[in-house]
């Protein structure tokens, strides 16, 4: 029960915080089509966050709504990986992060569609449709920018190296993950590494980018120990709910 709540918070918080970061681009993208695309991904992710958090609140059984969970928890109660809370960097870095996350998210949701928990499987099925498209798009963009100009290749390679050790947190399984896997609720993240390596390897090859030769993985986000960036995200995101408690919007 507790483990399920924990797992659902991880799903919801990843989507919420990555959606938040993408939404920062709205109105500031490098061209109109991209502006629309990145906002669209933000929109999908925030929609998914709402579904996962609502279910987390329901399973927890203390009457907390998705909004309560999004707006009234402080940093230590957030369960997203550190990757998604880092600042956007340039548009290429945002796309690289999106791709590294999408490649995981896609395989994870495919596993979740077969979840033994019908509520989980239902949300996963909805999300998978969106995320299949996210992955297709971010993969295409990473390939194009890797293959584009010398400058774009350099930026994408730097982004890949910068984010690699954060992406690897996605595969750091802990007790919660093993618990979910045993109950047939969710795939063990560690076991998705092979599929992810394949997807990422194929795209990076086409993008002419070199995968970093390092297995060092940042950790702790999933358990609530974040980077210094999350606090600033929450201060902004939660301002109205914190300043006007109990108001309806």
């Amino acid at each position, binding site marked *: 029960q507790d483990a399920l709540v924990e797992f659902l918070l991880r799903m919801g918080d990843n989507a919420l915080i990555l959606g938040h970061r993408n939404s920062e681009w709205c109105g500031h993208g490098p061209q*109109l089509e991209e502006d629309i695309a990145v906002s669209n991904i933000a929109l999908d992710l925030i929609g998914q966050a709402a579904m996962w958090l609502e279910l987390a609140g329901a399973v927890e059984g203390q009457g907390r709504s998705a*909004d309560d969970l999004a707006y009234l928890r402080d940093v230590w109660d957030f369960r997203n990986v550190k990757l998604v809370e880092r600042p956007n960097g340039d548009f290429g870095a945002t796309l690289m992060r999106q791709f590294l996350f999408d490649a995981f998210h896609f395989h994870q949701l495919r596993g979740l569609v077969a979840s033994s928990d019908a509520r989980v499987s239902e949300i996963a099925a909805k999300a998978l449709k969106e995320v299949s498209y996210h992955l297709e798009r971010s993969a295409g963009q990473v390939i194009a920018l890797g293959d584009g*100009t010398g400058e774009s290749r350099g930026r994408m390679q730097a982004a890949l190296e910068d984010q690699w050790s954060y992406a690897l947190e996605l595969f750091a399984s802990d007790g919660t993950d093993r618990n979910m896997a045993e109950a047939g609720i969710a795939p063990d993240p560690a076991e998705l590494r092979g599929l992810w390596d394949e997807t990422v390897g194929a795209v990076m090859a086409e993008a002419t980018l070199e995968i970093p030769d390092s297995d060092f993985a940042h950790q702790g986000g999933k358990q609530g120990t974040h980077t210094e960036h999350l606090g600033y995200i929450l201060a902004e995101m939660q301002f109205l709910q914190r300043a006007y408690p109990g108001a309806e919007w």
Partner: protein
Amino acid sequence: SPEEIAFQERIDRNEKIEPKEWMPEGYRKTLIRQIGQHAHSEIVGQLPEGNWITRAPTLERKQILLAKVQDEAGHGLYLYCAAETLGVSRDELLERLHSGDMKYSSIFNYPTLTWADMGAVGWLVDGAAIMNQVPLQRTSYGPYSRAMIRICKEESFHQRQGYAIMMKMANGTPAQKKMAQDALNRLWYPSLMMFGPSDKDSVHSAQSMAWKIKMNTNDELRQKFVDQTVPQAEYLGLTVPDPDLKWNEEKGGYDFTEPDWDEFYQVLKGNGPCNKERLGARVKAWEDGAWYREAMTAHAKKKAARRSAVAAE
């Protein structure tokens, strides 16, 4: 000239002019200016509302707002495409925006200071925009008319969403009510300015009306807007910040105070509260994105070259 006479007759018969057909240079130029400024207004218009996306108070409101701002980018896209049919590229138009040569609607030079502004912008600014745009669905230039039809449909949806936010606020806590009133106070007159200067001071109008590029006079639309909006404000329990506002039975509309046209011309000149920020944000986005656009072009060329190399084998 005989061509011009025939052209005007087509317009008078309510025929649509299509891209490849003959048109007077003045018609083309006026349309490019008007559609271009409208397109620019959509993308600059993303900024004031975009300012509250990361701070939207609920997940649902955040999604609605994101979708709305995204729609504005989409409107920009339709309109740049419509302008392109007149032989001007999107990049060219953007360059003229960035250099200050072309304008966007002055309303977007006002800041959004509280969440209630997300309601008031939807209600008043989109409301005024629709008032301007609905008649343009019947404008004489085909691609423009079709773009306006799509846009109006979405805009009226946005306006209802904005009004819904105002309802929540006006019926909310005292602080929320205060926010709503404050937003109305700040945005009322700038919204009235959206219809442009008074008819007596408005240039180009007669020719544009004859060409059916402009369908109504500024003052007609402004009056219509006031008549529509005042009862909505009353329904919200908010006070329109105009002590001289009153119903005029005789004309069947409200008498109201004109906006401060000095302020209007100041803002137009660049001295609005956010002119520098707005244009600065657009220019920054464009410059920061240069490497991205170049890379996408380079990749597309490489891909095409690879494809034709394979085909040649």
